[in-house]
Structures are given as structure tokens and as C-alpha cells.
């Protein structure tokens, strides 16, 4: 499929006013183009929309192991308080992660000096990918968060012209910083657009899903993405989405992370149980959706792993047409471009 319908990436983040929306009608198998502000007109009274309110962490830390410069990228916090993290060899966000030198091999007990008194101590090394570590930070607690926000930088996107600030990589409704990369499907949803959805009669709820890394610099590890990700479902959201399901109202996920959390929760527990959990669910063409009826997502290239998830919503033929249409109309792909609404 690649090459047949390859979407260009945004060189600058698409501004909210210029954002475009392709409605991929899953019933009529029809495609219609909209300005993003038309989203509320595609919402239905009684819809239960679910957003991921995770803020984006400054997940990239520069450090040293002995004499060697390294980059430690947070991949997600575990229930134990330790972190999954990925170690990269020397390089910057401008370099292709696959082309950077391999990181030094570390063993449990080894330390990574991150400067200003912050260090990471390796507590486990993945059996199949030596760069995938579990670490604990010293210091812990509030001092860790202060140091992380003083030293850490947000993970950047190589296709952009410039590095983005931490503020530019937040959604409008960001709360606890659980995501290591921007939960990008929600980026076009300004406060006014959320209000417009509610004015159209849709409910808008949130969950928190720790969206993980999109690239690891190691092809075998990339093939394992997404790694298990933590999420929290509040009692209010669990009840509201459950009520929508019982009443046959539409459940709309904003982003693949929300889809993963809701479908993962119902598979593990048989229902939407509130609380914190991890999901290792991988969604693809054969996944039967039990919760989510519709998806708002970024326009994604067929080469990306996101695209496989879309196959759980739409047949390959419809997605091929959507890609072709998007390309002809100048849609921009990936995290900071235009949107598709599969509904």
C-alpha cells in the first residue's frame, strides 16, 4: 500500500483553523470532506465521546553512562513507581532513531547520570531488547518531578522543521502527565470545539491513558509496539460509557489510546471496571470491537502501526480510498496534521 497513497507530514503543526476532517462513513462507505469545525455537526445527541486527558511528559533525558553520551526516553510509569525506559546512543531528534549508534549494554544495578543530581538506576533489562530497561529514579517523589521538568525535553518529531515546546505538545484538556508522546487525536479539540460537541447533545468524558513511544530505534522492539500501557478509568466515565452501551448509544473514541483503554478494559474484566490498569491489547483487522463504535484519529500513513488499528473499524478497500482522497486533497499526516472521523 505504501507509495500508492503516501501522505505528506506536516512541517509545522497544522493550526486549529486550518485543520481538515475526512468523514469516513462506515455504513454508507462514503467519504466527505469538512473543515474541522464541522465535527459537531457529525456528532449525535446521546453520543458518548471519550478523550484521553493525559498530558505529554518531557520524556527525553540527556545523560551519560561512563564516558558515553546517551538519551533515556521514558516509555511509561509502572504501578510499582518504576519506569519503562528506552536507551538510545548519542544523537539528537534530527537523527533517524534507527541510524543512531546502539546504546551501551547495561545490567541491573548500573546507573545513568542525568545531571543536576538526577540519576536512573537500572532495575531490569528486557530479555529480547537490551535497550528496553526498567529503571528507578533517584531522587523519587516531588524531587523527581521537579528534576524531570527541569531537565527533560519533549520527544520531537523528525518531520517537523523545528523542535516544539512542551506547551505545543499538549492537548487543550491535558491533566496528569502520563503520556510520553502527545495523544495527538485530541489536539484539534480546542475548548470551544469540546463545548460545541456538548451543545450538539453529545456527552464528553475523559480517561487517562499513558500513550507510549512511537519509535525505539530497534526494529525488533518497534515490532512489539505498542508496549503495555497504563490507563485509568474514573467511576464517572466507566458508568457513562457503560450506560451508553446499554442504551445502544454511540461510543466515540478520540484516538487509538482511548480505543485501546476501553477495549482492553472490557476484555480483561468483562466490563468497564473503574480504576488503574495496564493493557497489552493489540488492535488490528481481526479485532472485534465491543465498546467503541466510532473513532476520531489523525490521518495516518499506511506504513504506520496506527493504520493497522484502523482496520478494526474499516475494510482495507475503504481505507485505501480514504488515503487516496486525503492525498488528492492535500491532507497532512501524522501527529500534527489533519483528522479522520471513522463513524
Amino acid at each position, binding site marked *: 500500500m505504501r507509495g500508492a497513497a503516501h501522505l505528506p507530514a506536516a512541517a509545522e503543526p497544522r493550526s486549529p483553523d486550518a485543520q481538515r476532517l475526512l468523514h469516513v462513513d462506515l455504513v454508507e462507505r462514503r467519504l466527505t470532506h469538512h473543515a474541522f469545525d464541522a465535527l459537531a455537526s457529525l456528532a449525535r445527541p446521546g453520543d458518548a465521546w471519550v478523550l484521553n*486527558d493525559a498530558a505529554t511528559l*518531557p520524556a527525553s533525558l540527556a545523560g551519560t553512562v561512563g564516558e558515553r553520551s546517551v538519551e533515556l526516553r521514558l516509555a511509561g510509569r509502572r504501578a510499582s513507581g518504576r519506569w519503562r525506559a528506552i536507551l538510545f546512543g548519542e544523537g539528537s531528534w534530527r537523527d533517524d532513531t534507527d541510524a543512531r549508534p546502539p546504546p551501551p549494554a547495561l545490567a541491573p544495578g548500573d546507573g545513568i547520570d542525568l545531571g543536576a543530581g538526577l540519576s536512573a538506576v537500572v532495575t531490569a533489562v528486557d530479555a529480547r531488547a537490551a535497550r528496553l530497561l526498567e529503571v528507578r529514579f533517584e531522587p523519587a517523589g516531588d524531587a523527581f*518531578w521537579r528534576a524531570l*521538568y527541569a531537565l527533560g525535553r519533549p520527544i520531537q518529531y523528525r518531520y517537523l522543521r523545528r523542535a516544539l515546546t512542551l506547551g505545543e505538545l499538549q492537548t487543550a484538556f*491535558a*491533566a496528569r*502527565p502520563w503520556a510520553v508522546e502527545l495523544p495527538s487525536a485530541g489536539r484539534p479539540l480546542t475548548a470551544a470545539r469540546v463545548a460545541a460537541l456538548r451543545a450538539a447533545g453529545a456527552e464528553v468524558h475523559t480517561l487517562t491513558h499513558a500513550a507510549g513511544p512511537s519509535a525505539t530505534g530497534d526494529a525488533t522492539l518497534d515490532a512489539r509496539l505498542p508496549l503495555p500501557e497504563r490507563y485509568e478509568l474514573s467511576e464517572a466515565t466507566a458508568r457513562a460509557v457503560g450506560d451508553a452501551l446499554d442504551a445502544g448509544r454511540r461510543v466515540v473514541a478520540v484516538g487509538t489510546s482511548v480505543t485501546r483503554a476501553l477495549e482492553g478494559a472490557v476484555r480483561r474484566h468483562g466490563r468497564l471496571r473503574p480504576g488503574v490498569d495496564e493493557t497489552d491489547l493489540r488492535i488490528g483487522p481481526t479485532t472485534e470491537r465491543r465498546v467503541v463504535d466510532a473513532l476520531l484519529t489523525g490521518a495516518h500513513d499506511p506504513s504506520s502501526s496506527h493504520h493497522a488499528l484502523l482496520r478494526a473499524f474499516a475494510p482495507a478497500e475503504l481505507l485505501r480510498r480514504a488515503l487516496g482522497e486525503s492525498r488528492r486533497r492535500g491532507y497532512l499526516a501524522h501527529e500534527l496534521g489533519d483528522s479522520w472521523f471513522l463513524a
Partner: protein
Amino acid sequence: MELSKTNALITGASRGLGRALAEALAERGARVVLVAREAAPLEAAAEAIRAAGGDAHALPADVAAADAGARIAGTAHAMVGSLDLVVHNASTLGPVPLRPLSETSDAELERALAVNLVGAFRITRAVVGQMVTRGRGTLVHVSSDAAVEPHPTWGAYAVSKAALDHLAAVWAAELRGTGVRSFAVDPGEMDTAMHAAAIPDADPAALERPAAVAARIARLIEDPSLAPSGARVEAARVPAAEAVAGGRA
């Protein structure tokens, strides 16, 4: 807003009214994140609250820094969870000793605006979205009578506080119907280091204690009927009995 179930952020919290507010809110059960530039006095203020049984977290930051919104919001949300309350109290007088506008530099006026106005704006912008999606939040803007009465030599400060009052009012207009309240409060003249810097020969005995004013502002936060969204309230006019009940001065 029930303070025992509230996550609060207070700027300018290492001394004066900000510190007294952090103490007053923590006493009423709020989890408080204290923001100020200097780490040592800030940590001391947070430690004092913890020693008294409160839940306090120190977050050193300059609210005038360009990326301060996302950094402060992210750190605070990591420390205590979703913020329900922000008190914009950090402020700078501008040139000290106070000088007429004709002797105030562009940089001095810009600094006063950067801290007193833009600092409040960028923090609200970084946290208000999650308040709107949850349908719950309070934004408090600490103003001054200088925002209303044009006193000579108070120019930079007065201009920034007048703009802050209007910032509070415009947020209120834009947030109508969302469950998020925005108001401004004039604390009145208090016995603080800032007041001493502005008026060195004032008699401290004639001034209000910050703790007494903080108790009144806590009432305004708890009871929306005393400070509806869009209002500008003088703390001195808050019903005295209520203020005494919560005060420690």
C-alpha cells in the same frame, strides 16, 4: 467549592499573602502546590504546612518564563492530580522604590506585565481545559486597589492589576456554563514584605495580617455566592463572622 476535596495551586506562595493562603487552604483540607521563584523559602513554607499536618508540595518556577504554563501544570498534576483551584497571587511591584511612569523603563513595565498578567494567563490556559471537561474549577486573581484608583508612582503595578481584573472577567464570560468560576479579589493593605517595599514608612500595626485576609479569601473560594464568576470582590467586605470563624490572626 469544598476545600477538603480540592487540589490547589498558589503562585507567589513563599511569603506574604500567598504563603498565608496556602496555609489557610491546607488547613481546610486542600492539597496545595506552592509556586515561587526561590526554592529555599518555598520549601520552608511547604515544610511548615506539612509539619502542621497539611499536604503541601513545593514547585519552584518563574511564572514569567515562556514555557512555564506546561511545566507548572505538568509538575503540579504529577504531584497532586487534576487541579481544581488556581490562585494567581504572584506579583512584582515594578521599579522599587516606586517611580512615576515618566521614569519607568519599557523593561520594567514589561516585567510587571510578564509576571502579574501574562503569568496568570499562561497558567490558566494550561489548566483550564481539564477543568472544563470535568465541569469543576475556580480561578482566583489577586488584584489591588491600585487597579481601580490611579495613584501616582504605582504605574507599572497598577496597569498590570487593572489588566488582571479584566482578564478574570473575560475568562468568566468565556467560561459561562462550564462549571468553572473566575473572579478577582482585592485583598486590601496588608503587613507584607511587598507592602514595606512600596510604602516603607507605613505603620504595620495599621495593616491587616495576611492570615486574616487569607481566611476571607478562603471563604470566597468555598462560597460562590460571595464571589460569583466575573465578580471583583474586596476582601474587607467579606462577612466578618465568616472570616473570623476561619481566621487565625
